């Protein structure tokens, strides 16, 4: 399991999980789980288009995830956010269906774009992943205060000159950046599981944002480590273990929160 060819997998998976945990905290806080699902799944059309043109799939993923994120933001000017996200997603998937019908790509390769191929990371893939991960985390650090303000109390943010629409666009762009780094490695579906479940679980344990972000990244990293080990031993797909562990950790978080409420029936704040 710790052979030399697995080193790249461990490295790439750790970077991906830590980034997804941090970005995912804001996705859960803002109620943008749908966007976090739609951008990676829609961006998959970009990879299909890149395969058609014979260019690097990361480029196709990047262009499509960014265009999709900005398109969702643009549609969301007048429509409800969830409707805008659904419309943006289906348009991207429709294009994906068109590209797939034109290309001669084999089904297993598409399967790996959706469900990931984490056990086959090559060493020249690790560096771009690390670079994009660093940029995503840097973007979150730069945006930290306005993003937090706008996510928690939108009206106060508006009053202090932090536009809600502008923050939404910025956040979707960060999701797009994270997507183009992670989808080739872990697949569109796994990316989504890594973003939502650990962050949702972390929020059950603490209400302090800094601690919750760290906890979320920690849970995501442990989830992917256990999943890779289990997948290596059993031969079953990594995505299954990530999805199952995500649900288990969230159930654990909800259980802990319920237990704490039962122990202290009347909190001082209430």
């Amino acid at each position, binding site marked *: 399991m710790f052979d030399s060819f697995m080193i790249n997998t461990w490295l790439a998976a750790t970077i991906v999980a830590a980034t997804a945990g941090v970005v995912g905290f804001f996705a*859960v806080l803002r*109620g*943008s*789980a*749908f966007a*976090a*699902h739609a951008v990676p799944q829609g961006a998959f059309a970009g990879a299909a288009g890149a395969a058609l043109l014979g260019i690097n799939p990361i480029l196709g993923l990047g262009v499509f995830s960014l265009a999709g994120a900005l398109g969702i933001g643009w549609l969301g000017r*007048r*429509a*409800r956010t*969830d*409707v805008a*996200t*659904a*419309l943006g*997603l*289906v*348009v991207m*998937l*429709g*294009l*994906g*269906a*068109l590209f*797939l*019908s*034109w290309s001669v790509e084999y*089904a*297993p390769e*598409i*399967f790996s774009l*959706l*469900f990931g191929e984490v056990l086959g990371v090559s060493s020249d893939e690790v560096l771009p992943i690390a670079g994009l991960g660093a940029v995503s985390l840097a973007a979150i650090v730069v945006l930290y205060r306005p993003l937090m303000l706008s996510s928690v109390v939108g009206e106060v943010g508006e009053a202090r000159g932090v536009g809600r629409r502008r923050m939404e666009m910025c956040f979707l762009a960060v999701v797009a950046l994270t997507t183009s780094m992670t989808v080739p490695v872990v697949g569109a*579906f*796994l990316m*989504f*599981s890594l973003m*939502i*479940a650990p962050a*949702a679980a972390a929020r059950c344990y603490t209400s302090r944002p800094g601690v919750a972000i760290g906890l979320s990244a920690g849970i995501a990293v442990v989830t992917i480590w256990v999943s890779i080990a289990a997948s290596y031993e059993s031969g*079953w*797909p*990594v*995505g*299954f*273990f*990530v*999805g*199952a562990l*995500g*649900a288990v950790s*969230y159930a654990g978080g909800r259980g802990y929160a319920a237990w704490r409420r039962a122990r202290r029936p009347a909190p001082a704040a209430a």
Partner: protein
Amino acid sequence: MSDLLQTALVSGLLGSSSVRIAALVGTAVALVSGVVGVHTVMRGQSFVGHSLSDIGATGGSGALFIGVNPLWGFLAMGAVAGGVLELMGLRRPRGRDVATGIVLGAELGLAALFLYWDASFRSTTGASISILFGSIFVINPAIVPVVIGFCAAAMATLLLLQRTLLLCSVSTDIASARGVPVRLVGVAHLMVMVLAVSLSALTIGAILSTALLIGPAAAALRVTRRPGLALIIAAGIGVAATWAGIALAYESYYWPPAGHGWPVSFFIVTLIFLFYLGADALSVLRGRRKARVRAPSLAAAERV
């Protein structure tokens, strides 16, 4: 003249039995999705509606693995997921987003496992692609009566619950004040949505299922504020886009670059999106005209 039309239609578009089945099933599914979609959009449950199609696909791949008709897998998994979502707090807008995300994540993990088993024991790797992207032209004729029957049942439920559902969709508070069992109505809506989404995901693919559920309804609600009219417009847009999409896909066999047709999902999705953009532009124009009419009277009022 009618002879000419007859030959053109029978020998051409409608002459092919797969096109006839596609038109029949597509119409039934588009009608039900359009009507359920108006309630889904008004309730802000688009994410749930989309997730149910992916979740249904998990059930479909599971059914493929144990060797039963995918229809039952789609319906069973959809109903189970709907129940779990309801228990996890679908009613509260704040909990809905995360609950849907967790259930969807777990289900996608299961889908990966089922598809892996399918691929390693039965060598049907194409299953994931056909379930996700589906093709309306390869519907198994044997399931057509079942699909039409379920669509009719869903439509009947919707018509029966029409007024109650609308009241709950518009305002839960008013509905519960008037003694409507809000939670029960919510479960009924969820189950009809599961039915509509599973049937459309099975017959025309998970992509089109979301497009038909959300697109026509969102477009209709941009054009009119009257819910009854919105239901009719949404169903009309869904059916029109489906028919035009099928005709275009049939035509596209002669188009470049490939020797085979363009996917029908692409046409239907694009048409629905164009309908939405048109409806959006119309509502903006109308808003501007209204503002222009109102402006002089305001000015007059200020003068007095």
